[in-house]
């Protein structure tokens, strides 16, 4: 368990948590209709900063993304004297889906290295004075919940005393174009859970939470769980199975009657909201008021899980449940209690739920503890379990001209991307979808397929098998391919299948679907291939509830024909 020391939100609605809460309290929304956006000609409703706000935020020598993150972390730090950011016991965790991608060119060049998320996080961390190497969480829409759970595990395992978690993303043309091609953008302010909802709005923000070890006082992350529904890379399981499982696990031993509200994902897409309603009903939470904040901010992507947690804490401090802005009439079939107006409560616990592309889902149980009062949190909650030993059972190593399985080098004739096709045939995968994947997904898919060939078939279809991957170059091959399709207004034809693979965790989703691995799935980006950090995160993940084995390792594709994967299956020793 970890406690919240300080928070910040920088968004179009304000530059600190208080300003944001007061704006939301006054019913304001960051989402406005703009005529065209970047090279997109269509009208879009977007929760974006004004030019004046951007100018005020800018820091010389830093990009707009970096400036926003730096200011958010600095403002959060100004609220606490406890944290020494120069200490080797303090870690910076950046949560982002697309980081600096708007600065990237379509053609391969040196910009890929210094704009990579790991390099960006290191630049920010050095400027702010952190002494430790940062970790970037890139886990689609659930990134900021994943980041908070990582903070819980690392502090719980005694690796660090403090964690500064910042979630941030920009409402770039890159992202907007992608969601346009998915036909999932609403051209008017979004309406979560409403019968007339037309899709989501993209928003932008940076949201920071500073954590320390829990001491029984104040806002506390009591438990956090992730999983994968292994259903489809861009559509959630219609029955909400993945969300239901994380909700049930996170609430084990907790009296749901103590929940003030559920802070739902509520993106206002047809599929997401319907799925969440089914999950909430299936988990027996139909009577708990549901709040959702996308109507105020749009979908802030890598910031969402932090921003929405912060604002819900702030509202409950004042005894309020924030209503679902834009909601009028129920448009989902699962039984749920949607909070339509500002509602009073004296409860100080809530559930944050979230889902993302690649099939990943997450849940956090947040509760405000009072030293004098009775703790509603059950003993043994959270991730503070005894350290476990991990045993490596199978390994695979792939480069553009070599393949090694369990230490045995395979004879191969092809190089680069063609080598992956050769291996696809060699391991008779019979999965034509392979040809639609980008090179990073193909690499991870083939690696997983080779490992599976050494395992008993009963190892598939498991809820206790996690997939935890690391890389350096994010999804840069697909990023550049997507940029090429949106370069100018005359030839603006973004492709949904190219955009999908600009989320590097999709590679993990492909494997989860293929083998029906339904444990947690996360992707972390590091400034360099750092075995020590990878081992630390893998071990911390093993502390997570329900994980008994993992597919984990490094998978990096800096360009179409250059790649390196070192993947392994590890198991917990009882």
């Amino acid at each position: 368990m970890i406690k919240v020391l300080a928070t910040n939100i920088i968004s179009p609605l304000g530059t600190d948590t208080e300003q944001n809460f007061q704006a939301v309290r006054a019913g304001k929304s960051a989402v406005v209709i703009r005529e065209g956006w970047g090279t997109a000609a269509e009208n879009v409703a977007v929760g974006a900063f004004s030019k004046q706000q951007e100018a005020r935020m800018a820091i010389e020598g830093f990009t707009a993304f970096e400036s926003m993150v730096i200011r958010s972390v600095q403002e959060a730090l100004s609220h606490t004297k406890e944290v020494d950011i120069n200490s080797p016991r303090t870690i910076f965790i950046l949560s982002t889906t697309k980081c600096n991608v708007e600065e990237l060119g379509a053609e391969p060049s040196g910009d890929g290295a210094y704009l990579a998320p790991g390099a960006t996080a290191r630049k920010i961390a050095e400027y702010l004075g952190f002494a430790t190497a940062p970790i970037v969480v890139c886990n689609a829409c659930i990134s900021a919940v994943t980041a908070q759970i990582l903070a819980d595990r690392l502090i719980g395992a005694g690796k660090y005393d403090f964690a500064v978690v910042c979630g941030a993303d920009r409402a770039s043309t890159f992202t907007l174009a992608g969601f346009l091609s998915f036909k999932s953008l609403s051209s008017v302010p979004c309406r979560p859970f409403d019968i007339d909802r037309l899709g989501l709005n993209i928003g932008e923000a940076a949201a920071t939470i500073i954590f320390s070890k829990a001491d029984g006082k104040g806002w506390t992350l009591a438990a956090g769980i992730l999983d994968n529904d292994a259903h489809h890379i861009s559509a959630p399981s219609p029955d909400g199975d993945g969300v239901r499982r994380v909700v049930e696990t996170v609430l084990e031993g907790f009296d749901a009657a103590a929940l003030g509200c559920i802070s739902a994902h509520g993106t206002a897409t047809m599929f997401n909201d319907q799925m969440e309603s089914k999950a909430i009903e299936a988990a027996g939470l139909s009577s708990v008021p549901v709040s959702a904040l996308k109507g105020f901010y749009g979908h802030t992507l890598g910031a969402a899980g932090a921003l929405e947690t912060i604002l819900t804490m702030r509202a409950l401090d004042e005894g309020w449940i924030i209503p679902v802005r834009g909601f009028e009439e129920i448009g989902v079939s699962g039984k749920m209690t949607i909070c339509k107006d500002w509602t009073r409560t004296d409860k100080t616990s809530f559930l944050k739920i979230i889902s993302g592309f690649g099939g990943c889902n997450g849940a956090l149980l947040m509760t405000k503890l009072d030293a004098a009062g009775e703790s509603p949190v059950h003993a043994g909650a959270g991730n503070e379990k005894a350290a476990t030993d991990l045993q490596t059972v199978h390994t695979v190593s792939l480069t553009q001209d070599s393949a090694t399985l369990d230490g045995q080098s395979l004879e191969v004739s092809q190089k680069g991307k063609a080598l992956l096709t050769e291996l696809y045939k060699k391991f008779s995968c019979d999965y034509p979808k392979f040809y639609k994947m980008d090179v990073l997904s193909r690499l991870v898919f083939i690696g997983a397929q080779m490992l599976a060939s050494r395992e008993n078939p009963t190892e598939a279809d498991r809820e206790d098998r996690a997939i935890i991957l690391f890389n350096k170059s994010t999804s840069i091959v697909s990023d550049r391919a997507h940029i090429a399709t949106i370069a100018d207004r005359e030839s603006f034809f973004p492709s949904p299948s190219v955009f999908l693979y600009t989320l590097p965790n999709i590679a993990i989703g492909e494997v989860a679907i293929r083998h029906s691995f339904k444990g947690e799935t996360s992707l972390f980006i590091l400034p360099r291939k750092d075995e020590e950090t990878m081992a630390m995160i893998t071990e911390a993940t093993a502390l997570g509830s329900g994980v008994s084995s993992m597919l984990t390792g490094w998978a990096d594709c800096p360009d179409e024909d250059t790649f390196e994967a070192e993947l392994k299956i590890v198991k917990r020793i009882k």
Partner: protein
Amino acid sequence: MEELVKQLKEQIIDALNLEEITPDDIDAAAPLFGEGLGLDSIDALELIVILDKYYGIKLASPADGKAVFKSVNTIAEYVAAHRTK
């Protein structure tokens, strides 16, 4: 029409990365979704991009395209009737 069908097949193979499939492998009368090529919801969105990019036809959603996207032949008929470029 035959030329348009061939062109559409090539565009579909290219856009959907149907490696190892040639235009001759695609039966222009066969269903594109479910059976046949086994396309899915993302492929449907990709077909919308093809209509926009090469023929100047804008479809608002995959639901609007349901009848159009039955087979390569139905796409060709729709394109011939509605193309603006």
